[in-house]
């Protein structure tokens, strides 16, 4: 029986209720209770209360949701991502830096298309991976908002086409064309210039260095028939005598010299001997402060010193007597003992003095050993005589067109020459300057050149050492490389990139490129950044030297060609002439002898608008944001000027008059300055450089004069009485060590006898019942923490070593740190409040006559100790966060914003910091820096962080600290992290030296070593075992992760007394 069961839904179904049947056809048997938004009521056009509430509720929620939405942030807006850029991953490009003054082969870190950091290129045989403060800062100069954004014609923005048209017309109209450039070290540029001069026969190329080495060049011309500067190899010298040459910080090729010098100064397990360095100078320079024996001398005496030395080494000249003859005798003796291992350099720009120095080196057999005249250094080629001639030509109205490249003559030329008037007489004035500077603003056309980081090019700083320049960013503005402009005007339309490429293909590739396609060769060169051609330029066609010099080198080609490195160079003028030469040495005038010098920060002033450099403390004076008169405190006492003792920041303002020019400048006490002399730094007092540079300090270039056909940076000067006060912003206002062993020091003899000399750590007695034991502070530990989990450093234990023998105090590390860690610029006013933000500082201490002598037990006179000697010994000590393992700062932080990482870093969590500053107070090293204000986007601090362009330099890996938080050296934790991740990706251990902190990387002398204590093979671990190793303030048992190596001087202990004696003779 089939299943015919009937399931009825309720009675209505059972007895087929008609309504039920009807409704059963609908999907829903009953009216659904849908009344959302009041279906029925809407029909009646009225909104009942509950519906109103529904609307209300909905709209309120909607509104509030809309409010919650976060504002849209733009990320890198790539439509098509360039395959070589990965957001967050830096690209490195090898290129070269050259601004007409400083050269360095560099690597540029490029993040998301922005160059943010410059580092040295280890492949370079010239700069050896070193950098200087100025080179480090160049990356910020790229983002200088004072740069002009395109060609300017007659003071108003114009276009390249019009500029080209007008200038070409002007050139075609005949008349004398003069091309005034800085030294050109680029073969390609030189080729372009030659093309230009070939196109316009009336054109002449004049080379001008703001800080001139003309005297030296002329001297070499006289001595060797070559107007070139030789290469100096300090590495080979066991005795270095410098007559006022600041070769570690400024002279010719400082980075190169510093690297060589450091090799001879470093000591260690294998190496127990070091070079002896004697400095005879006027102003206390970076180089002089590193000398083992420093003889202060007036500029006029330096020339005479050269004569005396020459006489003493058998040069057959008659010397006048000098206050410090006795010392010169010993110097000469030492020189003669080291024939062939000696090197004598001289900073004078007087041809006669340089000729004498040449003969001294000749007599010592330095040529071919420590000095190589056949391997010229092309960094300085200026010819002062030509420049003077040019100005006269201009005055007489014989110059139709003047084109200027990398020069700023109306700022840098002696006032006496009257360049500005002469310039008015020139019909067509063209400048390639990147800003409307003092000269460019007077030109008819400014055809802005690229910044070096935007341009193509090449360089040959030293014969046979080539390096390439490639752009690391698309030009920020509508600029064009100067060479391209020149080529265009001489009718050659090739773009400069292919011009350079072509040039290399014909030249270097032809010689070096054997067995590879040019493209491979080219990309390899681009990758390495440098290439050496066995110590000789490949072909005269690309020797980056001015035509005249070119001719010379051609002339001496034959002699040079067969002259191997060791061969005796061209004969020197004979003794008879030398006496004549000696008699032409500039004599001292009356009054103070003024010696103008170059500062490590600003150099010749080309980068003056770079706030990093303005705020870089001068290595010696520690002053920022100003130039001033340096004067020996003893002289100041006589003149009754303020000695600025006890952290007094108000200097006496006086009028200094020299060569008929009077300037109002503050007098800053500068121990070590030769008695009866004063010094003033060049490069300041810019008027049209930009907001950071304008009206900072005084321009002293006008004081320079022409003596013996060269620019002279010395003259006699008169000082007025006090004219008022002037606020000086120095980062260090106390100058002596107060008899504390902050810097451990010893002499070479002592060190050779006992490697721990001057570094015997204090022992503390511990009386336990009857027997007492002796321990170092580190051994005495309340908790023996290392035993506890969390305190041991299981994987890494980062640390740093600083070799006080290698540190020359140049300050490259400071700028490098600024760039890497977004350290803000705070300006003069804040620095004067002792609120500089630098994470690493270089403490500079002078010795004091009152310093307790070793072994003596007489009571200390602290008040006396506050005053440095008139001629003190100087020590430099870089200090950054010590990353103490018993950090006083960590303990006192109420919110645990600073604590220790498991790999030994003292960490700072900015966003946890509430800013009690307790940590800074409790830091014995005072390395913590507080954000007193909001230093970014704050009109009160109108530097690069308040400037959209300037902000592009910021490192995206490091946060910009907000107002009210503490900050300090992080040991470049972002780099450590990057290194760890790279190693992790490759599944390997971190290789020692793979991670470099910014300071360590920048150091031209490798004084700073970063590494891992847990890696027993690491450089750091080895240094940790060195007998010279010590910790700063070890006795308070902070157990720092940064260690120092005792400073060793190659001098008798009596060096200071000797200097003191010299000072007495002066008095």
């Amino acid at each position: 029986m089939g299943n015919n069961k009937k399931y009825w839904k309720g009675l209505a179904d059972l007895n087929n209720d008609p309504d039920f049947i009807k409704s059963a056809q609908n999907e829903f048997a009953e009216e659904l209770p849908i009344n959302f938004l009041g279906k029925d009521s809407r029909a009646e056009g009225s909104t009942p209360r509950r519906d109103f509430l529904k609307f209300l509720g909905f709209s309120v929620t909607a509104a509030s949701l809309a409010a919650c939405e976060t504002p849209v942030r733009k990320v890198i807006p790539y439509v098509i991502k360039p395959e070589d850029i990965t957001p967050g991953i830096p690209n490195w490009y090898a290129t070269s830096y050259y601004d007409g003054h400083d050269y360095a082969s560099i690597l540029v870190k490029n993040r998301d298309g922005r160059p943010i950091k410059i580092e040295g290129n280890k492949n370079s045989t010239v700069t050896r991976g070193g950098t200087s403060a100025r080179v480090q800062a160049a990356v910020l100069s790229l983002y200088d908002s004072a740069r002009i954004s395109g060609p300017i014609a007659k003071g108003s923005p114009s276009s390249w086409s019009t500029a080209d048209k007008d200038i070409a017309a002007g050139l075609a109209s005949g008349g004398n064309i003069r091309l005034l450039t800085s030294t050109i070290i680029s073969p390609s540029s030189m080729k372009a210039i030659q093309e230009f001069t070939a196109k316009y026969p009336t054109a002449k190329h004049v080379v001008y260095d703001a800080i001139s080495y003309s005297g030296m060049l002329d001297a070499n011309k006289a001595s060797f028939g070559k107007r070139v500067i030789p290469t100096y190899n300090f590495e080979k010298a066991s005795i270095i005598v410098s007559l006022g040459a600041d070769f570690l910080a400024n002279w010719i090729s400082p980075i190169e010299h510093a690297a060589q010098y450091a090799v001879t100064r470093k000591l260690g397990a294998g190496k127990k001997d070091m070079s002896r360095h004697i400095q005879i100078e006027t102003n206390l320079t970076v180089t002089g402060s590193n000398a083992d024996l420093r003889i202060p001398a007036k500029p006029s005496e330096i020339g005479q010193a050269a004569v005396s030395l020459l006489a003493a080494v058998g040069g057959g000249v008659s010397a006048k007597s000098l206050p410090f003859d006795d010392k010169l005798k010993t110097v000469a003796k030492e020189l003669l003992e080291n024939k062939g291992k000696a090197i004598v350099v001289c900073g004078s720009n007087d041809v006669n003095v340089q000729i004498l120095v040449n003969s001294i080196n000749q007599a010592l057999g330095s040529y071919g050993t420590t000095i190589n005249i056949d391997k010229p250094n092309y960094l300085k080629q200026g010819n002062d005589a030509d420049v003077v001639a040019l100005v006269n030509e201009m005055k007489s109205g014989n110059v139709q067109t003047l084109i200027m490249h990398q020069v700023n003559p109306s700022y840098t030329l002696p006032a006496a020459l009257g360049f500005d008037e002469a310039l008015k007489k020139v019909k067509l004035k063209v400048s390639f300057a990147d800003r409307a500077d003092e000269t460019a603003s007077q030109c008819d056309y400014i055809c802005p050149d690229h910044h070096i980081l935007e341009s193509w090019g090449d360089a040959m700083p030293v014969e046979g050492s080539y390096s390439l320049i490639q752009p690391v960013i698309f030009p920020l503005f509508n600029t064009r490389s100067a060479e391209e402009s020149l080529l265009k005007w001489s009718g050659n339309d090739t773009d400069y990139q292919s011009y350079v490429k072509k040039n290399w293909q014909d030249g270097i590739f032809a010689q070096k490129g054997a067995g590879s396609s040019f493209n491979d060769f080219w990309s390899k060169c681009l990758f390495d950044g440098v290439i050496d051609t066995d110590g000789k330029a490949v072909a005269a066609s690309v020797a980056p030297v001015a035509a005249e010099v070119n001719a010379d080198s051609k002339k001496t080609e034959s002699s040079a060609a067969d002259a191997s490195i060791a061969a005796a160079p061209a004969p020197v003028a004979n003794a008879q002439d030398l006496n004549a030469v000696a008699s032409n040495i500039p004599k001292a005038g009356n009054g103070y002898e003024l010696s103008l010098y170059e500062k490590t920060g600003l150099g010749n002033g080309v980068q003056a608008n770079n706030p990093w450099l303005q705020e870089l403390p001068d290595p010696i004076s520690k002053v920022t944001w100003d130039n001033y008169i340096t004067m020996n405190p003893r002289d100041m006492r006589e003149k009754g000027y303020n000695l600025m003792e006890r952290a007094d920041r108000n200097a006496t303002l006086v009028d200094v008059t020299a060569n008929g020019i009077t300037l109002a400048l503050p007098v800053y006490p500068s121990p070590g300055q030769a008695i009866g002399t004063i010094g003033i730094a060049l490069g300041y007092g810019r008027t049209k450089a930009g907001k950071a540079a304008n009206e900072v300090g005084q321009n002293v270039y006008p004081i320079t004069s022409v003596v013996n056909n060269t620019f002279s940076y010395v003259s006699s000067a008169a000082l007025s009485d006090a004219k008022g006060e002037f606020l000086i912003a120095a980062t260090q206002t106390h100058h002596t060590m107060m008899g504390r062993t902050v810097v451990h020091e010893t002499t070479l003899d002592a060190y050779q006898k006992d490697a721990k000399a001057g570094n015997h750590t204090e022992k503390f007695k511990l009386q336990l019942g009857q027997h007492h034991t002796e321990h170092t502070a580190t051994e005495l530990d309340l908790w023996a923490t290392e035993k506890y989990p969390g305190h041991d450093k299981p994987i890494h234990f980062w640390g740093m070593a600083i070799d006080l023998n290698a540190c020359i105090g140049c300050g490259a590390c400071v700028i490098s740190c600024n760039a890497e860690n977004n350290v803000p610029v705070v300006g003069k006013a804040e620095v004067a409040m002792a609120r500089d933000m630098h994470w690493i500082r270089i403490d500079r201490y002078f010795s004091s006559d009152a310093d307790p002598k070793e072994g003596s037990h007489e009571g200390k006179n602290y008040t006396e100790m506050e005053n440095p000697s008139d001629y003190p010994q100087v020590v430099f000590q870089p200090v950054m966060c010590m990353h103490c393992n018993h950090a006083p700062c960590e303990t006192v932080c109420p919110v645990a914003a600073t604590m220790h990482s498991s790999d030994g870093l003292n960490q700072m969590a900015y966003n946890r910091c509430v800013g009690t500053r307790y940590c800074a107070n409790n830091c014995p090293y005072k390395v913590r820096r507080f954000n007193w204000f909001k230093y970014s986007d704050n009109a009160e601090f109108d530097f690069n962080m308040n400037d959209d362009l300037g902000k592009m330099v910021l490192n995206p890996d490091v946060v910009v600290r907000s107002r009210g938080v503490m900050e300090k050296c992080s040991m470049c934790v972002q780099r450590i992290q990057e290194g760890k991740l790279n190693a992790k990706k490759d599944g390997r251990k971190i290789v020692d030296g793979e991670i470099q902190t910014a300071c360590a990387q920048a150091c031209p002398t490798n004084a700073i070593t970063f590494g891992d204590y847990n890696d027993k093979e690491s450089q750091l671990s080895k240094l940790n075992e060195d007998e010279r190793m010590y910790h700063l303030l070890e006795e308070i048992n902070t157990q720092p992760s940064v260690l120092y190596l005792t400073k060793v001087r190659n001098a008798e202990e009596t060096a200071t007394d000797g200097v003191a004696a010299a000072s007495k003779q002066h008095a």
Partner: protein
Amino acid sequence: MEVHDSKLREPLILGDKSLHDITEDVCRPIESKPNRMWWIAFIISACGLLWWIISDSYTIGTGLGRWGLNKTVGWAWDITNFVWWVGIGHAGTLISAILLLFRQKWRLSINRAAEAMTIFAVICAATFIISHMGRPWLVYWPIPLPNQFGSLWVNFNSPLVWDVFAISTYFSVSLVFWYSGLIPDFAAVRDRATTKGRKFWYGLLSFGWVGSAKNWQRFEEVSLVLAGVSTPLVLSVHTIVSMDFATSVIPGWHTTIFPPYFVAGAIFSGFAMVQTLLIITRKVLSLEDYITIYHIDMMNRVILITGSIVGIAYITEFFIAWYSGVEYESYAFLNRMTGPYWWAYWSMMTCNVITPQLFWSSKIRTSLAATFIISIFVNIGMWFERFVIIVTSLHRDYLPSSWTMYSPTWVEVGIFIGSIGLFFTLFLLFAKFFPVIAFSELKTIVKSNNLLQKRGGQHHE
């Protein structure tokens, strides 16, 4: 029997006051309009308060850079003022707690005002804790609260966290102590109130107190226990404040003598401030009969003793600095005497060590004018003490390269002067609206006191 053994005692209240007189005298200022002197004082203080508001908002609005601090001297006037105010606060608690434990009846006329002073002083101190922070809006972070950073806790090793606990405990406990004492007096004011407003407000403030036997029994027990816990508390507070310095490594701070030395100094400055205040108050509110020369004398003795203790502490510090033979330590103290801040050190010495010694003479001790002047001197001296400890220790610490000088800006000065304005504004309001003498408790001694006076009278016949 109290009558007999109190033969030799000075009367604590002058004039034959009945219980009612006392109520009348103490409530008069509350019930009558303030007199001219009050208004003058109030307007001056209010101006100070205004300056305080301006300077503080300027600092918090633009940044701590408005102050004269620098990379080496991270604390100066801010913490100096903080410690100074906290120290002043101590006298109040000391009078009400320790003297209660010692059954010193003479405290009764002054403890109310002194406790009020404590509370206002601690408020002033607290303002400096907040304003000295780089990011004052995060002032609650040093309190161990669960937070959005995955419960990142505070660091209990830090003396600043100890401070947070000490100061907050000290403030709240003093407040409670003070208020529980006020309740019966409020009740009295309430019951005599004639106006609606006063009825309502004092009714509210008095928590419905009726003074039944059981209430009084509990009341006295509570006061006793509060006194018992407040005594170690008040000692602990300045001990902990001193640990801010004592636990650090800075030469001149790192000193084990600090806790007792700071506590003595606190009591010293506190009593001086009480003198300053009461000598004015008794005049302005004409309470000469209650706050008598005897009270002044008694407090001067305390000042003399604590002053001498402080003096000994100074000398001990120097001895230890020399005896330890620690380079940095000995220089730190030499620098105090002969360094650039010698003037601060010597003003401290003069004000704190020499001036109080004048109190050996009872003539000076019982002279209002002299007491007032000396009390001001002591206040100044104790301010300098903190300045010397903080600034002269910091400005020349370990590495000479970082040595600097410090000088204040108008903003800092403004905040300090302003805080005094804040303090006096609060105190004047207290003097106007609160019973400045704990008269309910004072009444307990009236009977014996009056008998004593009568006998004294008989003697003279």
